[in-house]
């Protein structure tokens, strides 16, 4: 639930926070799927 008083800076904060944790996780998942692919070759 976000407040009606939400402003652009808080949206920026939200996007930045999710990118902060999302990018390393995406890197980890990418490496994981490279490894998992070995099962099918």
């Amino acid at each position, binding site marked *: 639930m976000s407040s009606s008083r939400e402003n652009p800076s808080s949206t920026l904060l939200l996007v930045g926070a999710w990118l902060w944790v999302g990018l390393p996780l995406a890197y980890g998942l990418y490496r*994981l799927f490279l490894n998992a692919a070995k*099962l099918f070759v």
Partner: protein
Amino acid sequence: MRDTPFVSNGASRTLCQHEQECCAACNTEASGLNVVARVRLPYDRSVRVLVTVGDKVGFLARERQVAPPGWNRWLVPPAALAIHLSIGQAYAWSVFKTPLEKSLGITGTQSALPFQLGIVMLGLSAAVLGTTVERRGPRWAMLMSLLAFCSGLLISAVGVWAGMYWVVVVGYGLVGGIGLGIGYISPVSTLIKWFPDRPGMATGIAIMGFGGGALIASPWSTSMLTAFGSTTSGIGQAFLVHGIAYAVFMSLGVLLIRLPSPEFTAQKEALLKDRPKAGVAHNVSANNAIRTPQFWLLWVVLCFNVTAGIGILEKAAPMLVDFFKESSTPVAATAATGFVALLSAANMAGRFVWSSTSDVVGRKNIYRLYLGVGALLYLVLLTLGSTSTPLFVIAAMVILSFYGAGFATVPAYLRDLFGTYQVGAIHGRLLTAWSVAGVLGPLIVNAIADAGKKAGHTGPDLYATSFYIMIALLVVGFIANELIRPVDPRFHEPEAVVRAQEPAGSGDDGTAAKWNEAEAADAAEEQDAEGVVKK
């Protein structure tokens, strides 16, 4: 209300006549001091509560952690993930094992010690410090986790450089392990409070991060060791960079975490309107929770569910190779590493998917699935596993998804049973089940596989006995879950005591009343022989 002198700064003052609002009403006079107040309860009952007032100075003060108006609750999951993705590095410890063995001349058993001690300390520190984490708030807990976890890595760097392996064990295992325990429970109760309508999903996101942490750390640490070299100098540098990088990464959690504001608490009713069953009307303290059969039944459920998952996780790669060794389609060792990666993905995905599903189908039903279907899948592996590689892989993946989901769903289950009052502390105590399972699971699987090899067994026969044991454990867990009933109302906390813990306000004018350790001693005076507050 009986007139009760309250103590301020050690001096006995005037009598308090303010009934339930006495603490807030006396704030002006007693700002910054500890006050013992008697809170009046219905039916002529009362409890003495020690509150700290005026403690609003400092970044870590609990009232400074309260969200300002308009704070978006979706900022809380990334704060939690910043901590869990970092401390999840513990599961990638194996990357350091071989380099440490070669550079310091230690055995495989010795190189596993930092991780093992870390997991034991995780359970112990979560159990012992849970109440403190609850009282001090999530920002304090996340900062302590950052300091302990990253100090552990830096101490390890010094230990490797000095060639003193015991320093690595103490640094990573003991100091870092305390950081693991505090960090693991730090966001749990806050997430549950922000997402009363979807507690399973909220804790699922955070605890998925703990699984995801290894996925990030494993390739990252490997690249670093390749760059710096697997010598003592290189390993030390890798630990140093880890310590600094994780401190920066975790600081997002410390800066971003917020407790729900009074404004949000007012909005909670609207959130729960569509989910009438999602609300919990009662609260149980951590001390009372461990006196209930529900806590111990759930302890058994978690312990056995984790043990069953470890049954596969511990021997995943050799298990797949052994199962299909004599078939027409044997599995190569390199392909088996892909299988381990798939299991990690299933473990992580299960934490989010199944825990979120529990918000819809209910906690008891979802554990029926984890334990009941888990047992059936072990049976499938036993009887049909060696006939088809895809069947084996899929069954093992689903079992591992249940393993991860067991961790992720349990905070929401605790919240359903015991309320949000001290759910973080109760969760901390429940994690001792993980410590036990972490020792029990590998012991069972390795001992039976070794004994099987000595007896000349090959292929699937090597694992048959341990699979039967896993099925038995899951059945016992299933029965324990069936026996869980709502907590007896005699264990419920009075509303006034629960309210005394909540920060009073979000703004500068808020003078907070905090639940204090000393409260427990005061309240104990009012308790009956079973430790339950008299009604």
